């Protein structure tokens, strides 16, 4: 296989892995916005928090799988608490107040992380079982990235099953579409909100924990991931999981190929694209609500 082809495939896998991570983060973000009208500026910060938790648990137990299990859960619980005690209180003040409080939360999480672990990049080592390369059909694939893609697909598959095949999922989908109506039907919407927020954060937490070895764990982690996730949600459509999926993968590949071949143009293209979509279709490509 020619070196160029190998390069293209490698980039494609990178892009796919990053795209999947983006989707994990963006899916929670878009559902939270669709249902509660809150644009959670701190969403990627929770992902970063989870990455740091993962590092810490790994340090203490030496077991990557345990860390991967615990970190997102802890982050998810932090998310639940945030919704219950901070967001719910400002809900009556309107969307602007909710947005601004998430800005404050983002700042606080950043400082917590810096205070707890310093400002240097932390290395999270890929466990033996997942390191190395896989040879298949004459091409080589980094195993960890395949793992990331695989794990994402499994988790998203489970989420999709819950969303579309269970009663709870039906309630959540209805709430994303029209929370007031669901409340009028007698369903405990505050509970649903809290749950969805917590799960959305958990998803971001999984992404953060898994991304640790790939992106390295450092206080600026949330910036790139967060901005990209916003672009995904905005372009894909507020409240649309399908839109988020498509745009996340597209953005992942754009990033991977862009950084390789047009490093100066790539981020500009991305933002320009987002600005144009926003100007023409303020609700995003697949979004409907406002």
């Amino acid at each position, binding site marked *: 296989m020619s070196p160029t082809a190998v390069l293209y495939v490698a980039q494609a896998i990178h892009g796919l892995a990053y795209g999947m991570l983006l989707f994990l983060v963006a899916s929670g973000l878009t559902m939270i916005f669709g249902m509660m009208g809150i*644009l959670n500026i701190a969403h990627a910060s929770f992902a970063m928090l989870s990455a740091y938790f993962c590092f810490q648990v790994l340090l203490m137990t030496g077991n990557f799988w345990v860390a991967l299990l615990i970190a997102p859960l802890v982050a998810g619980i932090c998310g639940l608490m945030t919704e219950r005690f901070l967001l719910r209180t400002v809900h009556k003040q309107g*969307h602007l107040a909710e*947005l601004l409080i998430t800005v*404050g939360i983002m*700042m*606080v999480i950043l*400082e917590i992380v810096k205070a707890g672990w310093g400002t240097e990049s932390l290395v999270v080592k890929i466990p033996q079982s997942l390191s190395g390369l896989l040879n298949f059909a004459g091409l080589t694939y980094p195993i960890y990235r395949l793992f990331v893609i695989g794990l994402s697909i499994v988790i998203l598959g489970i989420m999709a099953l819950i969303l579309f095949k269970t009663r709870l999922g039906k309630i959540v989908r209805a709430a994303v579409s029209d929370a007031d109506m669901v409340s009028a039907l007698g369903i405990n919407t505050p509970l649903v909100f809290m749950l969805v927020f917590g799960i959305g954060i958990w998803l971001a937490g999984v992404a953060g924990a898994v991304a640790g070895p790939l992106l390295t764990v450092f206080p600026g982690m949330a910036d790139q991931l967060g901005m990209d996730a916003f672009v995904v949600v905005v372009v894909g459509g507020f409240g649309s999981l399908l839109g988020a999926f498509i745009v996340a993968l597209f953005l992942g590949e754009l990033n991977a190929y862009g950084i390789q071949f047009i490093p100066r143009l790539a981020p500009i293209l991305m*933002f*320009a694209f987002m600005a144009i979509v926003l100007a023409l279709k303020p609700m995003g490509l697949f979004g409907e609500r*406002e």
Partner: protein
Amino acid sequence: MRNKLHKWILWGVVIIFVAIFPHVFGIYYTNFLVAFAIFSLYAVTLNLLLGYMGVLSFGHAMFFGTGAYATALALRHIQGFPLLPAVLVGGLAGGLLALILCPLLVRVSGTAFAMLTLAFGQLIFVVALKYREVTGGEDGIGGYPIPPLNIAGVVSIDMTDKINFYYFAMTVIMVCLLMLWFYTKTPFGSLVVAVRDNAMRIDYLGFKLPQTKAVNLIVCGAFAGIAGAVHALLMKLVSTVGVLDINTSFAPIMMAYIGGVGSFFGPIIGSGVLHILEDLVIRFTERIGLVNGAIFILVVLYAPMGLVGLFSAAKAKWFPKEKVS
């Protein structure tokens, strides 16, 4: 009539305070006051959009930073570029940027406006970062000359002297604040406030809504650019982190909120509070972001009308006015 006298006395005190400040408090605090003033102007322009017109400019640093870069570039590349035009060029750049973005920005409001401005703010940040040949990338632009102030070719005041610069900067900023304050009192200013309440009805009353929004945006962009220009002259160094980054966009929002988005002076008070806070906190810990973030959360939770709002509420409680019959 008593009120008017009170107001004149208050302004007299402020002016005297500003005039004697450097001689009383020394150089360090002189620069501190200029920084406070710069961000006051910057935050006021944000509030003219947020509190007055009802839109959140989430990437406001793009106007501030563009102004700062324009001034730095002009001074660096054009021999003998004079002082006042250097400041004006910053305002021009900020206003021009707003003008370019207007066709898109006037068509949206609410969350979409916040997102669009965030996107553009980030876009400009990234562009400045990547195009090192022009902007110096992360290192930025420095070492540009600070020209003297030439008055009618007769007097030339050296601006590298910190005290001279202080008077110049404070004068420029106070004049700008006065202009903006007057702006809010004009018929157009009363129109802008109405946009926040009921943009649709403005249309039905016969006003041109997009053009109205555009003019306000351009005014805010221009004056934010002037704030950036003065910042460039103060710091003698302009780089992406510090004038174009997301924290520079968040700062005026925090200041406006803490001081009170419902009043003209709120952002100025907020700027004061945050600057004093930062100066105090820095002595004990580096975690200024934590303090800022926590305060911001508390303000949004418990005092959404800011300090000015709290003050008004207290005044109404302890000095109730006569009831309207």
